[in-house]
């Protein structure tokens, strides 16, 4: 069955550094992969979508890579700020549906 794994441990970094979050998947080749941000007690908010034929996509301080050979996506936040602290979820397409990972909690310290 489809499995998605994100860093289970919280990621703590210093303000100004680059945060890198990992999303690995098995047993499937999705047509696209998405990243969402979720704040405590709130619904997820869409950040970026990357398709299988794209290796990299950027949006302001965010960058996502998609390696279909490694079955891995990396999510980078450059020049991180305390306001970037949240849980980040990856989601991949499978059979026309979205399958979500469990999320990685990011904490950016001033």
């Amino acid at each position, binding site marked *: 069955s489809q499995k998605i794994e994100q860093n289970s441990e919280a990621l703590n970094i210093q303000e100004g550094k680059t945060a890198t979050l990992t999303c690995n998947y098995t047993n499937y080749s999705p047509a696209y992969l998405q990243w969402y941000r979720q704040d405590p007690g709130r619904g*997820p908010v869409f950040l970026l979508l990357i398709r299988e034929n794209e290796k990299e996509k950027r949006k302001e301080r965010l960058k996502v890579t998609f390696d279909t050979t490694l079955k891995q996506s990396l999510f980078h936040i450059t020049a991180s700020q305390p306001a970037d602290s949240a849980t980040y979820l990856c*989601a991949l*397409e499978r059979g*026309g*549906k979205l399958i*979500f990972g*469990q999320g990685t909690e990011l904490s950016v310290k001033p």
Partner: protein
Amino acid sequence: SQTIHQWPATLVQPVGSPLSLECTVEGTSNPNLYWYRQAAGRGLQLLFYSVGIGQISSEVPQNLSASRPQDRQFILSSKKLLLSDSGFYLCAWNPLTELQETQYFGPGTRLLVL
């Protein structure tokens, strides 16, 4: 612009009681609608999705059911709640032309079954 509403925001219910959670979308027509459940520290689990009025697809056999009585209304129900039904319930939508792509989530309902 489009907005999505869910209510109630928080609910505490005894085991065995019924449940009705409501989700409505404004500012769009013919949306795809989804219900997810998120257990503490876990990812989102897709429960139901709907591509039109009266059309419901169930992803996980369970104690819950869904209905779509109107184009922009999606209801999650249960006849008898179980302890395991506790969680954070999220409704989401996306435009009909973008099936299963970017989804827009509501604020969620936190359900505690005691």
